[in-house]
């Protein structure tokens, strides 16, 4: 049976001990790519990012005629990353140590501005990590959760509601209550999509997109003029009440009068650890991964596929809900109808974060940092109009995001198609047509 599965070439990298298992066929390009992806781990996302930046640079050159390197330097500084550089030297500061490593350009005396920019980068890092984890967790169970926006909104709505009511509660209890309410809300919203998939097989892409719109319009209704959660003092402004002072998160770094980095930063880091532990060190994670890799084998092994679809979706939504609640009690403190429609779209960037981060905890962390820096670095107020037209700057973020998703998505697509073909062939092998 030299043509069947017995001869499928090994995919385990170059460590083939038994030459016979090498099989009869040469590994195809796509297969080699899959191999590089598994083996290298870091290689593919790194190449993807670099290519995206190169093409982004070409676009800058074509549209502005300016040196793309200057633009990237401006973005770098706009993101506050120059804070790490020793002022006046060509060296990079390693936080918490006295160590320095060489760096290509030196910085002007902008320490306070750099620090402020870096705080902004880290503030957007928090929801990007959490929404990235939300998408990644669902991916690991073989599902595509596009409903991050709706789940994030559910978290934000509960966060602002609980946070602005119930005066007199002790601060820590109040914060916990607001955050937990947000997490539960996110989990419930995503859980609807999970239940629908588990019971009647509704595709999660469709249901989560529809849930997004349900949550957006719920938010607009709640905080809009005359809405039940509109603020009590300004009847003509469609905004919520502010969260109470005692339910605001503590400040880690920066001027509390401006937007400063809040404790949510640690929550995001803890989220990465929890994600890794859940997937790799719990029976739940084992089941989720088994279902994600091969639902049929999981089912045959006695695992309830339906239950795991629901649980994975709910946990995914919990991460997104946490992002929404943390943003509210961390630095936004209120939400208006405009935020409901626009700011919540940060959750879509979470998809790019998860894709680029390859659904791994460490990858999601790094990808979130990259996108946070890009968003902050290109946001108009941080860029010198002399260097780069501000409208184009913001678009450059979107452009690079788009390119990253395109490249990452393209190789995932190739792998997907390859898998479909392989499965089709296997099915043909199991039961040839009557």
């Amino acid at each position, binding site marked *: 049976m030299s043509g069947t*599965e017995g001869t*499928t070439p090994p995919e385990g990298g*170059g460590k083939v001990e038994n030459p016979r298992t090498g099989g009869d066929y040469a590994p195809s390009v796509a297969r080699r790519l899959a191999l590089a992806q598994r083996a290298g781990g870091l290689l593919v996302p790194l190449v993807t990012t670099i290519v995206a930046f190169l093409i982004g640079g070409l676009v800058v050159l074509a549209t502005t005629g300016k040196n793309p390197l200057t633009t990237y330097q401006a973005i770098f500084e706009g993101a506050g990353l120059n804070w790490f550089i020793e002022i006046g030297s060509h060296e990079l500061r390693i936080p918490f140590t006295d160590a320095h490593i060489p760096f290509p350009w030196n910085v002007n005396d902008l320490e306070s501005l750099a620090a402020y920019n870096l705080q902004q980068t880290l503030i957007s890092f928090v929801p990007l990590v959490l929404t990235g984890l939300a998408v990644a967790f669902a991916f690991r169970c073989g599902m595509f959760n596009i409903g991050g926006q709706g789940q994030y909104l559910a978290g934000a709505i509960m966060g602002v509601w609980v946070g602005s009511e119930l005066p007199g509660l002790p601060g820590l209890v109040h914060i916990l209550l607001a955050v937990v309410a947000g997490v539960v809300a996110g989990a419930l919203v995503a859980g609807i999509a999970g239940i629908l998939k588990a019971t009647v097989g509704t595709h999660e892409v469709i249901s989560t997109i529809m849930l997004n719109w349900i949550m957006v319009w719920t938010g607009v209704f709640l905080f809009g003029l005359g809405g039940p959660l509109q603020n009590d003092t300004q009847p003509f402004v469609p905004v919520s009440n502010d969260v109470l002072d005692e339910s605001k998160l503590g400040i880690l770094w920066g001027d509390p009068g401006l937007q400063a980095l809040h404790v949510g930063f640690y929550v995001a880091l803890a989220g990465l650890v929890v994600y890794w532990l859940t997937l790799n060190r719990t029976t739940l994670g084992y089941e989720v991964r088994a279902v994600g890799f091969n639902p049929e084998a999981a089912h045959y092994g006695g695992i309830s596929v339906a239950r795991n679809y629901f649980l994975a979706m709910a946990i995914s939504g919990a991460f997104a809900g946490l992002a929404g609640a943390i943003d509210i009690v961390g630095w936004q403190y209120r939400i208006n109808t405009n935020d409901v429609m626009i700011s919540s779209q940060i959750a879509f960037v979470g998809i790019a974060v998860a894709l680029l981060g390859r659904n791994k905890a460490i990858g999601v962390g790094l990808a979130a940092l990259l996108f946070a820096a890009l968003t902050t670095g290109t946001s108009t107020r941080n860029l010198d109009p002399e260097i780069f037209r501000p409208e184009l700057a913001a678009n450059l973020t979107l452009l690079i995001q788009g390119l990253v998703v395109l490249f990452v998505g393209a190789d995932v697509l190739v792998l997907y198609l390859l898998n479909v073909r392989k499965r089709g062939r296997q099915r043909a092998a199991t039961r040839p047509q009557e």
Partner: protein
Amino acid sequence: MDERPVLELRGITKRFPGIVANDSVDFDLRKGEVHALLGENGAGKSTLMNVVYGLYRPDEGEIRINGKPAELGSPRAAIENGVGMVHQHFMLIPVMTVAENIVLATEPTHKGVLLDYATAERRVRDISTRFGLAVDPRAIVQDITVGQQQRVEILKALYRGADILVLDEPTAVLTPQEAQELFTIIRSLTEQGKSIIFISHKLNEVTEVADRITVLRRGKKIETLPAAGATEEGLARLMVGREVLLRVDKTAAQPARVLLSVKGLTVEDDRGIEQVRDVSFEVKGGEIVGIAGVDGNGQTELIDAIAGLRRSQAGKIVIGDEDVTDDSCKECLDAGLGHIPEDRQRRGLVLDFSLAENLALHDYDHPPASRHGWLYPKRLIEKARTLLQEFDVRGGGPQTRAGGLSGGNQQKVVLAREIDRNPKVLIAAQPTRGLDVGAIEFVHRRLVGERDEGRGILLVSLELDEILSLSDRILVIFEGRIVGEFPPGASEEELGVAMTGGGRKAA
């Protein structure tokens, strides 16, 4: 028989990263002969044939067709040189007619635009009578039997002017009767001057149909010998490189109490069509019950129902003393069922999991593998290490991806997991499909060993050889019904007749 070679391969070497798939292989095919290419999985048979069919370019070596050097850079070039190939998995378009499939890519047309049906049909009829391969040109491919589909594939190659036909594992999908018909066709083709390369790993077929046999092992040509006088034992030794036990050594069964009982079971498939109809049988501890049948006669649904993967419409299933009718898969497993699924890559293994994780598929959720929902990966790895050693799994350790192993080693992993659970009843569905001789020997010995341990074993296989050499009792399934019970000494002919619906209730 003409002694002039129509195809000569000289010193063909083909390397892939890390392996030499073909190492300086010589091969020649004479006009009008059937030359069998024999070898285990991964021996290099397919690579060699892909070189002949222009799918691979050899790194070294020369191909001569009718004495002239030929450059076969693509399948098109191969076809132009008179080489045709019938793949194991048919390359037919199921919704088109036989004639349309055969003339595909060289369709006769009206003024270059519209397909000329009449001419196409006439040409197909001509060539089918000329070579004695009866087909109905107007039949839709998906409605005809597998054996007929194979004829269509052969006609397709002949229509394109093939003088050299490569048949890749042609009998894998056929019943014994259909295989005999194929051999008749092969003989009539060679009488008309066609030359045939017959790829197989079934020793009895090779000795029956071939004129000469070339054995490949690990990419090297071991020997070319005339089929007359070749013994199966001798060929197996050449293939594997050591003495192989073809017949399974086993003592008479000592059936004990009933461990699996199926009564009046009726099961529908996903489309709501009855696939298993009122099936009743028992499996006792210490015996192997074989279910023989042509693929698609309800075997899959029967196994799925017993394993809790599919609801039944009527009937009762008891494992040990527990009624598990329509219980979940988990409950069936807990009742004492072990299950080697027929498709190990789709069902038996999570290919992206490590071997340790795969081996834990049934016991990850209780101590020692986990406690209160916390998994202990180290314990999984320790346990995997022992099991991998006991079952002689090669090609990786506990943390190797399952997908990186060869088919035989993957199957050993599944076997290890199922036997380790100490089941009362073990369902082995196609347990040696796609495995090479060495691995088959291991699986067979182990199944007999488990029988002797007192387990009840239900063997479902499409390979009659396997059923005959392992079973203590043989049931034949046809169109969802058990149509006969046979003793282990039954002949292939008897079984073959029952498998195709003739001679009901033979025993």
